[in-house]
């Protein structure tokens, strides 16, 4: 089914709206978990929410605060060296994309790696960092490198780092709360509340327990769906900045032909890379943070 062609700007708006919808679903999921926990422990949901919400927020805050430095260290990235011509040209590309986006120029880092890959990070555009692998600099021509940097700049423009880090935090919080609730249930051997009400309530409790076991999986799938949507958005927005979707398409084609030999970096970083650096087998499934390369190339070439 061919989607009808629209202006890039409209697509960017639509993608942002879709993200909001999915995020709201995520929040509903979080509160449902609180509710279910309340049910099985026999405590009123308001209470579990009052305890659970600060825990969740705190967890999200901690994940958010430590994300940047851990990303850079995990990748083993270093600042780009302007004395080296290739790295100087990389810095130039980042400056140009920043101008096209109307943002301050991010700091530029390089990660020593044969793979062709790049990522962006930073709490807000003013603190942003874009990092490209040395593989990028060696194997991509100017147009392709520009496409990749345009994609990364779009992540910064659209605050994807913020969106994804908070989403990861929510997923972690749901998993944490679910785990705590199940352990409490296990150790307390069922709650006094459910014993009081009798048979009918047991079914509700069982449903709540199943829900709590499945909630982390649901939230992870939702997180991955958000990640993939944002990747498409970054592709479209990047094409808008460079006015040249073919550049990125060609770079993705080179990435596709490439076999990653040394995946480095922490898992949390994955959505910020331009292509999934891990688990090649899982690359094109619903368990992937990135949409299938073939589909991304197809959409870019159709622009």
């Amino acid at each position: 089914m061919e989607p009808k062609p629209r202006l890039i700007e409209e697509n960017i708006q639509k993608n942002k709206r879709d993200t909001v919808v999915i995020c709201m679903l995520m929040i509903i999921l979080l509160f449902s978990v609180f509710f279910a926990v309340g049910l099985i422990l026999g405590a009123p949901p308001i209470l579990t929410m009052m305890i659970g919400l600060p825990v969740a927020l705190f967890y999200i805050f901690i994940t958010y605060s430590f994300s940047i430095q851990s990303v850079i260290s995990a990748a083993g990235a270093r600042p780009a060296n302007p004395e080296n011509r290739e790295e100087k040209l990389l810095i130039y590309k980042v400056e140009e994309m920043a101008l096209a986006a109307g943002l301050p120029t991010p700091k530029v880092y390089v990660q020593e790696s044969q793979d062709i890959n790049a990522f962006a990070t930073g709490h807000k555009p003013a603190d942003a960092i874009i990092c490209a692998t040395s593989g990028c600099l060696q194997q991509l021509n100017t147009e392709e490198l520009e496409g990749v940097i345009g994609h990364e700049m779009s992540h910064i423009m659209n605050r994807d780092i913020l969106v994804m880090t908070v989403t990861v935090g929510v997923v972690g919080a749901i998993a944490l709360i679910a785990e705590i609730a199940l352990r409490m249930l296990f150790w307390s051997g069922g709650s006094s509340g459910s014993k009081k009400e009798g048979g009918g309530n047991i079914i509700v409790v069982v449903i709540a327990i199943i829900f709590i076991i499945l909630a982390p999986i649901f939230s992870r799938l939702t997180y991955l769906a958000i990640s993939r949507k944002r990747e498409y958005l970054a592709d479209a927005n990047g094409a808008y900045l460079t006015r040249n979707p073919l550049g990125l398409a060609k770079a993705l084609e080179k990435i596709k032909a490439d076999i990653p030999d040394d995946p480095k970096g922490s898992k949390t970083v994955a959505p910020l890379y331009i292509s999934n650096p891990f688990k090649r087998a899982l690359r094109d499934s619903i368990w992937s943070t990135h949409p299938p390369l073939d589909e991304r190339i197809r959409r870019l070439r159709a622009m």
Partner: protein
Amino acid sequence: MDLMLIIGLIVLLIVVIILLWFFSYYNRVIRYENRIDNAWAQIDVQLKRRADLIPNLMETVKGYMNHERGTLEAVTMARSAIMTAKTPQESMDANNMLTGALKTLFAVAESYPDLKANQNFLQLQDELTHTEDKISYSRQHFNDSVLQFNNIIETFPGNIFANMMGKKTREMLQIPEASREVPKVSF
């Protein structure tokens, strides 16, 4: 009495909603307009940067390209025109002149292998190409900002608020080089 209260609350709610709506549009209109002014200033920064690189370039090619009088003069003349331009139109024309003159100079430089081996020249060439790209992207961003601004003050309901604020549509830059097409997307 109860009915009056309910009606009063509903009216209040409607007023509050309209006020919030107005504020959101007001802020966006201001932000988009500021973005245009910022983008315009940025173009100037890049143009000035390019003009500043010219003396260094002239020094570097001097020894090698002495016979290319016309080409070299075109560059220096364009630069003086930029320095002495009084109106924005004059400034734009002078800058376009410089773009053409530089293009010719670098094309001619291709036949001077000694010059092309000169490290200084290579660095300047990189930097000037980079500056040309920056000028181009600054202009692109300016036009994108103008489009975003015009869109919000021309479409409903932004146009109502824009009229109240006295905002008028802005003009985009006509870019002399091959205009970049905004790609259509199948999403």
